[in-house]
C-alpha cells in the first residue's frame, strides 16, 4: 500500500502495526515534496535531515514502548506565521526574513507533544493578507491541480501541500476565509474553528479579533484529529476560551439524525458561478437523501460583510503591524536620515503592496475624525451580522453555502484589482466576524478540472456537530 495518498487513519494504522516506520513514512513525503514542490512552491523551507531526525526519535520512542501522542509519526506542514523556537518565522515578508523567534507558538508546542513530524514551513500571502498566496515576498504557490491557477490564500502553501500529497496534515490560519478558500481551491478539507477554540499565542497577528488557527487535511477525520490536538485552553491567550475539547474523532462517524441545514438566499445571489451553485445544490440533495431537512434562512446583513471586514481587519492590522519598525527585530533599512525616516523607510521597503494598502486603510479609518464613521460603524454592523447568525441557528443546525463565488482563478488575474480580490471572501468572512466555526469540504470538480468546495457553518463551539455533518457528506461521496 502506498504511503502518499493514504488517509491519516490509514497511516496511523500502518505505523502502529509496524508495517511502516516513521522514517519510511517521512521519507516518502519528503520524496513527494522533492518531486512536486519545484512546481507547486508550497514550502518556503523544509529540512530533510531535520524531519528525518524527528522521525527517528518517534520510531525510537515507539520501539521503547513509551506512550505516543495522537499524531505519532504524522507529518504536519505549518504556515510560516506561527512561531517556532530557533527557526525562522517569516510571514512571507521581507520584514521578518531573518526573524528567529525565541519561543514556540502554542500550536507548535501541541504538535511536538503529539509527536508530529514538523515537515516544513508553508508559504502564505505576506502576513496572511490575501486570497491567492501571490502576495508572498518570496514565491508564488501554484494550485496542485493546475499550475496556472492560484491555490487560494492566504494559507495557500498549507492547502497546496496537502492537495499535492506532500503532507497529510497542515496548519493554516483563517482571518476572513484563509483556510477554507484555499482548501476549496486545492480540493482538501480545511476548518476555521470557533474564535477562542485554539490559542493564538505565537500566531503572528494580522487582525487579532478575527484570526484563528485551524487544520487542513485530505479528509474530515484527519481534520478532526488535528483539531483535537491543537484545540483547548491556553492561559497565555486571554481570548482563548476555557471549555473542554470533545474527542472529535470518536463521534465523527455517527450521522446527525434529524439534521436541519439552513441555506440563505444571500449566498446564492448574482456573481455566483453556475458550476459552483450546482455543486452546492447537489451536495444539499445528498444531505436530503440522508434524511436531512433543508430550510431557507435569511442573513440580511451578509451583504455588508465584505465592507465591515475591510474596515475591521485593516484597522487591527495597522495597529498589529506598527511594531515592525526596525528597532527591536526584523528588517531595518540601510540608509535613512533620522529616526522618523528610519521607521518610514524600513516599513516602506520591508512591506509589500497589499500589506501597505491595508495599513493605509486601517490608519486612515482610525485617524482623528474618521473613527466613528468607519471603525465604530463597522463594529456595530459586525454585531448585526452576528445576530443574523444567532437568529438563523435558532432554526437550523448548520448553514450550507458555497466557499467561494468561483473555482480557483488564474494566477495574476486579480492582483491589480484589490476589491475584486476581496470579494473572493464574500461567503467566508462572515464566520470570522461572528466568531463561529466553518469548514470547507471537497464537493465536486469544475468542467476545467478544478475542485469546488462546500462550506458548512455551525454555532460557536459546535465543531463536533460541524465535523459530523461534514463527515456524513464525505462518507456518502466516497
Amino acid at each position, binding site marked *: 500500500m502506498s504511503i502518499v495518498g493514504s488517509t491519516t487513519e490509514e497511516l496511523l494504522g500502518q505505523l502502529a502495526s509496524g508495517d511502516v516506520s516513521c522514517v519510511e513514512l517521512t521519507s516518502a513525503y519528503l520524496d513527494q515534496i522533492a518531486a512536486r514542490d519545484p512546481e507547486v512552491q508550497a514550502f518556503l523551507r523544509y529540512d530533510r535531515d531535520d524531519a528525518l531526525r524527528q522521525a527517528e526519535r518517534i520510531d525510537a520512542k515507539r520501539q521503547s514502548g513509551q506512550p505516543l501522542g495522537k499524531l505519532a509519526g504524522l507529518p504536519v506542514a505549518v504556515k510560516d*506565521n*506561527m*512561531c517556532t523556537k530557533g527557526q525562522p*518565522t517569516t*510571514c512571507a515578508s521581507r520584514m*521578518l526574513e531573518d*526573524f528567529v*523567534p*525565541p*519561543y514556540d*507558538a502554542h500550536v507548535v508546542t501541541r504538535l511536538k507533544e503529539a509527536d508530529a513530524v514538523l515537515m516544513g514551513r508553508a508559504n502564505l500571502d505576506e502576513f496572511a493578507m490575501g486570497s491567492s498566496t501571490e502576495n508572498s515576498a518570496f514565491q508564488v504557490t501554484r494550485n496542485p491541480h493546475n499550475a496556472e491557477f492560484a491555490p487560494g490564500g492566504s494559507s495557500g502553501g498549507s492547502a497546496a501541500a496537502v492537495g499535492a500529497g506532500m503532507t497529510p496534515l497542515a496548519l493554516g490560519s483563517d482571518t476572513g476565509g484563509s483556510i477554507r478558500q484555499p482548501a476549496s481551491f486545492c480540493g482538501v478539507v480545511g476548518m476555521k474553528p470557533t474564535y477562542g477554540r485554539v490559542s*493564538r*499565542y*505565537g*500566531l*503572528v*497577528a494580522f*487582525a*487579532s*479579533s478575527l484570526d484563528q488557527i485551524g487544520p487542513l487535511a485530505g479528509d474530515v477525520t484527519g481534520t478532526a484529529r488535528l483539531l483535537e490536538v491543537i484545540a483547548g485552553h491556553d*492561559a*497565555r*491567550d*486571554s*481570548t482563548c476560551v476555557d471549555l473542554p475539547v470533545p474527542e472529535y474523532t470518536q463521534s465523527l462517524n455517527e450521522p446527525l439524525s434529524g439534521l436541519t441545514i439552513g441555506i440563505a438566499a444571500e449566498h446564492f445571489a448574482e456573481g455566483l458561478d453556475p458550476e459552483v451553485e450546482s455543486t452546492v445544490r447537489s451536495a444539499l440533495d445528498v444531505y436530503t437523501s440522508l434524511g436531512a431537512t433543508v430550510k431557507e434562512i435569511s442573513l440580511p446583513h451578509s451583504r455588508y460583510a465584505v465592507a465591515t471586514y475591510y474596515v475591521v481587519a485593516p*484597522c*487591527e492590522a*495597522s*495597529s498589529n503591524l*506598527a*511594531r515592525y*519598525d526596525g*528597532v*527591536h*527585530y526584523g528588517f531595518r533599512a540601510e540608509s535613512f536620515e533620522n*529616526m*522618523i525616516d528610519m*521607521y518610514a523607510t524600513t516599513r516602506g521597503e520591508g512591506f509589500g503592496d497589499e500589506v501597505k494598502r491595508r495599513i493605509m486603510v486601517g*490608519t486612515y479609518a*482610525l*485617524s*482623528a475624525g474618521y*473613527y466613528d464613521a468607519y*471603525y465604530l460603524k463597522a463594529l456595530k454592523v459586525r454585531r448585526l451580522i452576528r445576530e443574523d447568525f444567532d437568529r438563523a441557528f435558532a432554526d437550523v443546525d448548520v448553514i450550507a453555502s458555497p466557499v467561494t463565488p468561483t473555482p480557483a482563478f488564474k494566477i495574476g488575474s486579480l492582483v491589480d484589482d484589490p476589491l475584486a480580490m476581496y470579494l473572493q471572501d464574500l461567503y467566508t468572512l462572515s464566520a470570522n466576524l461572528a466568531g463561529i466555526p466553518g469548514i470547507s469540504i471537497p464537493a465536486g470538480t469544475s468542467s476545467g478540472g478544478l475542485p469546488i468546495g462546500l462550506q458548512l457553518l455551525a454555532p460557536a463551539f459546535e465543531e463536533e456537530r460541524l465535523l459530523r455533518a461534514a463527515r456524513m457528506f464525505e462518507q456518502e461521496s466516497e
Partner: protein
Amino acid sequence: MHHTIVIGLETHVQLLTKSKLFCGCVNRFNPENPNTQTCPVCLGLPGSLPVMNREAFLLSVKTGLALNCDISQFTKWDRKQYYYPDLPKAYQISQYDLPFSHDGFLEAEVEGQGVKRVGIIRAHLEEDAGKNMHDETGGGRDSHVDLNRCGTPLLEIVTEPDLRSAAEAKAYLDELKLLLNYLGVSDCNMQEGSLRCDANINLHIHGDDGSKIATPIVEVKNLNSFRGVEQAIDYEANRQLEIYEETGRKLGDPGVHKETRGWDANRSVTFGQRSKEEASDYRYLPDPDLVPITLTADEIDEIRQALCEFPADRRRRFSEAFELSAYDVSVIVNQGAEFANYFETVAAECGDGKQAANWCTQDVQRELNERSVAIGEFPIGAVALGTLLAKVVANEITTKSAREVFAELLESEAIEPTAALAQIDQIIEERGLAIVSDTGELEGVVETVLAGNQKIADDFRSGKQGAIGPLIGQVMREVKGADAKVVRQMLIEKIGK
C-alpha cells in the same frame, strides 16, 4: 488687572506588583542590567499576547476607591498608538473612553490656607514604556534602548484644573504620595521614576472691568520631583504672563494649540519641545487581545471594606485617642504608614501618647535622619521603645535614664524583640538607673547630707526656696536613680523639723 494660575496634574504611579502588567517578567528597578527583564510579551515580539495581572488591577481599584472615585462596573483596554523606540509594540496598552475609575477627589491641607479639595477626573491603568538613553555629549552617537521597565503597571491619575498655586500642587502631591504609601500600592520613589508628573498650566487674567481671559494651556512633561513641579508652575506663570502682555494671545484664538514643554531641572526653566507632526493622533482602538473586566457592586464593596485606614482618618483618630495637637499628629501620620504604626504601638505600650509622640518625632526621627533609613530598618522595635517609655511613665526611671538606655540599645543594633526587653532591664540594672523612692533606703543619706550642710538648711528655712537644689543634687549623686521628688519631699520635711 490680576491673574490666577490654573493647574491640573497628571501623575503616573508605578504599582508595587511582583510581575509586570501583562507578562511574568519581574517588576523591579534594574538599570544596571539592561534588557535582562524581558520576554516575548514585553518585547512585543510577533505572536506574543498580553494577559492582565490581577494584583495590578486590584491595586488600581483600591486607589480609585481611596480617591473617592466611582468604580466602573465595566472597563476595557485600548491601544494608544505612537512610534518611539522604547515602545516596542508601537502602541501602549492603556484605557481611553472607559477607565476603571472616574469622578473622585482628594483633600489636602495647604499650609496657612486650610483643606483644599482637588477633583479627580479619572484614574486609569496602563503599561509603562522602556527607557531611551541619548548621547548627551551631542556627539550624535546612537541612542540606547533598555526595555527592563517596559510593561510595568502604571496608574495615571488626572486631576481637574482645580489647583491655584505651586503650594496647592505641592500639598496635593504630598497627600497623594502619602495615600499611596498607606495603601501600599507604590513606593513612590521619584529618583527611580516610580512617581512622575505632568502639569497642565495656564492663567486666568481678570481685567479690572470684570472680564476674564484664559492664556493657552501648556503641558509641562516629565517633572520628576515635587520641587520641580513647584518651580515649573511659578516659572510658567511668569512666562505666560509676559507672553500674554506681549502678544495678547489667548485660549481659543485661531491657531492656538496646547503646547508641550519640557522641564530643565538644572536651569530651572521650561523649554519648548518640537511638537511631533501628528502628536495628537493616537488612533486609539479597543485592544482585541485583552477582554473587558466587569465588577459587580458587591465586589466593589468587598474591596472597599478591605481598604486600610487612610491618612486623613488616621490623623483624626490619633488626635482623639492620644490627645495630641493637630501639628504633632500630622508630623507622625505624614511620615508614612509604617512610622504611624510604629508610633501607635509605642503609644499603646507606654500608655502615654504625648510621651510616645515626643520620642518618635524627636529621638527616633533624629536617629532615622542620621542613618538615613526608614522606620522599618530602625534597630529598636516599637514594643521595646514602648516598654522603655512605660518605665518613664510609671516613674521607674527618669527621662534622662531612658535616653541612656535608648542610646545603648541603638549601639547594639537589630536585636531580637524579646532580647531587647531583657536588655532594657539589664542596662537599668547594670547602670543602676532604677529610681529609688524608698524613703527607708534614702533616710541615712538625706540625714548625712543635711548634717554636712547646716548653712544651706538655714538659708532654706529663712525662705530661700532655691537653696534646696544643691542638697537634692548631693543626695542623688550618692544614690544613683534616687527619685528627685521623693528626695525633695524628705529634705523639706527634715529641715522643717
